[in-house]
């Protein structure tokens, strides 16, 4: 077990360094130096060359990558010349709000998707199952911002229940938490898209589990349906979900980007969107690498969690 975890960790570190290298190369190819965004209107070729020399952007590529990697190891994500702040400070400022949005919608998505998938599996091919499948299939094919727009139309413009945009007064994570009305639509949007992916897996996973002998045994010994589902089915059907949650990180990051942009909610996604528009490459590079590392860590944690939760998983 320990050996397996160590091997997986080493592989994860290698992949994380690879992620940094590939992202660095691609962004170097798209925009080699942030000189233009730093110098703004004073960016003549001579000024840019001088700026690059001062800030080390004229060094060989491998040296630049080395110093970027060295900085990452010290949690130094670089400096956003456009915003006049270190990227690390920008991340720290926005991370809490994004984490709140992501975790709240992930939890809500699980609370909806797990029972729904089990109910669909137990009552499979019933009208309710077809209705739920149609619903999730539609959500699955829907761009997340489009779901958000429909929710804005119904709940903000027609019914006036929730605001169409998150208020500018929401500046801290705590304020986001104590003003639930402001964040209802963003959270529901992100949760809706996540549910669409999860419940399909949950349904098929529960279908597999329902056919197993231990369910037949639990029923044969006279357990009520409720106990069979809650004690025997749920825990087994959830096992594949652990991996799925680990794999859902890129989707959540992309969902954050679109939801935050749509609702104008200041988080890491909106930061990335603004950086795209101002071609603020240090922010783009660091957030891409951070997203990649989060993905690697998510997969690693999911793999370890599965081996802990399911003793039948054989370690290679």
């Amino acid at each position, binding site marked *: 077990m320990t050996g397996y975890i160590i091997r997986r960790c080493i592989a994860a570190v*290698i*992949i*994380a360094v*690879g*992620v940094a*290298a*590939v*992202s660095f190369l*691609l*962004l170097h190819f*798209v*925009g080699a130096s942030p000189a233009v965004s730093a110098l703004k209107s004073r960016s003549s070729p001579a000024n840019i060359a001088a700026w690059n020399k001062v800030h080390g952007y004229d060094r060989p590529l491998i040296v630049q990558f080395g110093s970027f990697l060295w900085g990452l190891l010290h949690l130094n994500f670089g400096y956003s010349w456009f915003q006049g702040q270190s990227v690390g400070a920008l991340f720290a400022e926005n991370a809490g709000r994004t984490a709140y949005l992501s975790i709240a919608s992930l939890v809500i998505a699980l609370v909806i998707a797990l029972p729904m998938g089990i109910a669909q599996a137990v009552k499979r091919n019933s009208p309710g199952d077809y209705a739920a499948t149609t619903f999730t*299939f*539609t959500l*699955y*094919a*829907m*761009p997340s*911002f*489009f779901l958000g*727009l429909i929710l*804005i*139309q119904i709940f903000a*413009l027609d019914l006036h229940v929730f605001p*169409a945009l998150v208020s500018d007064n929401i500046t801290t994570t705590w304020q986001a938490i104590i003003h639930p009305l402001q964040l209802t639509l963003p959270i529901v949007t992100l949760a809706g898209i996540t549910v669409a992916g999860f419940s399909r897996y949950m349904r098929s996973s529960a279908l597999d589990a329902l056919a197993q002998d231990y369910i037949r045994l639990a029923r044969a010994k006279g357990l009520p349906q409720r106990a069979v589902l809650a004690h025997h089915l749920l825990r087994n059907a959830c096992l594949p979900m652990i991996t799925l949650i680990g794999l859902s990180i*890129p989707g959540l*990051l*992309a969902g954050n*980007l*679109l939801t935050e*942009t*749509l609702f104008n909610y200041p988080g890491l996604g909106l930061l*990335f*969107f603004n950086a*795209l*528009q101002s*071609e603020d490459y240090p922010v*783009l590079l660091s*957030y*891409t690498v951070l*997203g*990649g590392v989060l*993905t*690697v860590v998510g*997969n690693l944690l999911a793999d370890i969690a599965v081996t802990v939760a399911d003793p039948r998983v054989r370690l290679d």
Partner: protein
Amino acid sequence: MTDLGAEQMIEGVPSFGSPNIPTTAPEGGEVQLLASGWRLALREFLSNRLAVVGLVTLVFFVAFCFLGPLFYHTDQSFTNPLNSDLAPTAGHLLGTDDNGFDEFGRIMIGGQTALEIGFFSAFIATVIGTIYGAVSGLAGGLVDAVLMRFVDILLSIPFLFIVLVLATKYSATIFSESLILGLFSWLVPARLVRGEVLTLRVRDFVVAARIMGGTQSRLVFRHLIPNALSVVIVNITFQIADSILAIAYLGFLGFGLAYPAASWGDMLGNAQTAVSSGYWWLVYPVGGCLVLVVMACNLIGDALRDAFDVRLRRR
């Protein structure tokens, strides 16, 4: 050896031509006439009602977008700014957009580009992924390990982020947008094909081809890829769906095609303003078309996967 021949060796079943030839029950019980793998898959696919619905929807939208302009004439190059944001009337079935273009005609044009980018990027991703996966699986050992770690690395970089960064500079034309999407979508097909090749390469017909002196490229293109085609075809449909969704994201965030070219995604770029101004005709028809096409592709993909899965097949 033809594709069909290879398929027969796997199934162990000779082809008797059309599956519709009536059979008489011979002595010794009922015997069902068996066709080749591809015919069986096709029959299975067509017996799936949802799949047929998906296929009909997709064909309808292809016809609507590419043949529609022949019947519903609109001017999509010159516009009168005074006609912007008109509500639907008999003259403009879905009103006009912010620039004064007829929205119904624009949905057709935008659909053409969306479908073209979807198909083209899926094609690029499939070609790269199939060859990469087949080479990796056949080579095995260290080469395979290195090639697959590279796939792991690229898979860990969030797709939307890297595509958006590239799209800020290079997404102006149909070709470049397809290229960006295709170049970052070949990872899943590469993994699928490699997995398939790993099981195929120890089969007798591949070993036989190798012993007969077949070169590596002959093995890959003549024996391995044709036999891994079923997973590839299933993946293409999902890939088209994903690409069309990605176009929507790029367009919504404002990094799509250069004006006046537009895909369904770009038409949703101002969706937020349109919704708050009450211009529903600029948002819901386009979005609805997009969702329906993505759904149709997903339905077809699901059905194809079931149809090719020998274990699920009724025989």
